[in-house]
């Protein structure tokens, strides 16, 4: 049953050194505030799972939180490389990073299988690709009806899933809307979970009969962090800050500019620093 706590408490309770952690959000609703909190709490040796590592994992990898990355596309969308990820893979800075590389289809299916309580995902995939040669977690199963060989990957069953959502009610029921990604699946697949939200409200309010809602009893911790997805976005709250994504390319290119930025904007700040992004946008919209 969801406990509504501060983000610091939630990370303290749910994320331990050495955990397998899935922080999801497909462009939309990326849990940046939670990533910063994990960096501040100096978690180490994490196995990070995420379809699109993106800025949030670039930051966590650059700050030495990760020992392994399970992913399918590791770039800055529409901009270019993730320099910290590349530095870790190419130069081992700040530490060597093991990688387990999949396709999007495999990752999405692996989350779906995890949510469904299955040990594996079966799909038509990887035909003609070299990825099975470099990833021993890509196998094949044979359809007993047609003889077709299909791809199989282990289900994702992370220790902790962390997502950002639009809002929660006071019981801890959480609403998602818009680009949904694999967040619902990540939470349902995980042993523990943290959901940061733009706001905690009395009632989720008028919604579709088929609204995407994670019931309180499927969630570990809920923390109110307005703006917590910045520079990603929260549908109906604030837009994606495309300028920041472009600016990150320069910030992260060199180790020293990266470290200076992290010190000023993460280590010396708290989750409340994200609120300005929610507010700025709300004001601009008026």
């Amino acid at each position: 049953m969801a406990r509504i706590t501060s983000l610091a408490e939630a990370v303290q309770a749910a994320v331990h050194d050495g955990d397998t952690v899935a922080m999801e959000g497909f462009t939309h609703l990326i849990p940046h505030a939670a990533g910063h909190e994990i960096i501040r709490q100096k978690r180490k040796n994490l196995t990070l799972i995420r379809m699109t590592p993106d800025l949030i994992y670039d930051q966590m990898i650059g700050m030495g939180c990760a020992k392994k990355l399970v992913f399918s596309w590791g770039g800055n969308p529409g901009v270019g490389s993730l320099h910290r990820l590349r530095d870790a893979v190419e130069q081992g800075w700040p530490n060597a990073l093991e990688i387990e590389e999949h396709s999007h289809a495999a990752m999405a299916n692996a989350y779906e299988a995890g949510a469904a309580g299955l040990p594996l995902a079966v799909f038509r995939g990887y035909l003609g690709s070299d990825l099975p040669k470099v990833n021993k977690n890509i196998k094949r199963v044979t359809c007993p009806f047609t003889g077709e060989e299909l791809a199989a990957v282990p289900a994702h069953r992370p220790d902790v899933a962390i997502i950002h959502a639009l809002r929660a009610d006071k019981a801890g029921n959480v609403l998602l809307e818009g680009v949904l990604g694999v967040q619902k699946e990540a939470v349902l697949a995980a042993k523990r979970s943290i959901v940061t939200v733009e706001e905690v409200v009395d009632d989720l309010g008028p919604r579709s009969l088929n609204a995407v809602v994670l019931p309180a009893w499927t969630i570990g911790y809920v923390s109110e962090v307005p703006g917590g997805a910045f520079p990603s976005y929260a549908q109906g709250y604030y837009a994606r800050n495309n300028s920041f994504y472009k600016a990150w390319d320069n910030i992260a290119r060199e180790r020293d500019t990266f470290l200076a930025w992290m010190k000023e904007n993460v280590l010396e700040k708290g989750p409340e620093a994200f609120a300005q992004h929610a507010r700025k946008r709300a004001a601009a919209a008026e």
Partner: protein
Amino acid sequence: MMANYKPNEMMTVAAARALRNEDVCFVGIGQPSAAANLARLSHAPNVTLIYESGTLGTKPTVLPLSIGDGELCETALTTVSVPEMFRYWLQGGRISVGFLGGAQIDKYANLNTTVVGDYNKPKVRLPGGGGAPEIATSCGEIFIIMAQGKRSFVEKIDFFTSIGHGSGGDSRQKLGIKTKGPTRLITDLAIYQPDPETKEMIVTSIHPGVTREQIQENTGWTVRYAAQVAETPVPTAQELDILRELQARTARAHAAA
């Protein structure tokens, strides 16, 4: 080259023209997104655009920077989860055209977006495959957009991220793949299509003002040409207007964010 358009614009326009009104197109970010939306805003107003973030039938006013910008969702018929996108929509065989690009391509239109150099000790770690491995095999056919250059158009790619025509001929069928694979490679210099037998990508149309020498200089294999090579029609004023307005709107929107 004497023209009132850039090679990049020619490439985008040529790619847009290949899309038909009845296509259901799986759109990638960047050039494919520009081409697909140019098609939608010009000759193919009913083309269905799908982005892997789950947006079905989207009609963005400005081009997205990312694959899941709010603009895509707000202008879509509806938006589904990413597992559903890859299971029901892509694997389900509902997409007629997929767009791909890459860091390296070979003459059979196999693509590498994974690493330059050895996988375990890469010279350059590229972003990776993303949706490409299954886009390449699940879509009815594949259009590839890539600017030419000797570092990207290579004899041998360092890693097969997604299959084109494999080692040519019936490579795809031998793997049990039922879709056509790359039917068009659209570059800043020319348009390539697969030889019906060997499946090698051969030049079928050269962009205005481009020479065969230029094409060869920018290709790491010996380029072959169709018996009849066309000249790609120049971008019309209307095509250029629509494309440039789209890109100007996009630049303004992204700067404001």
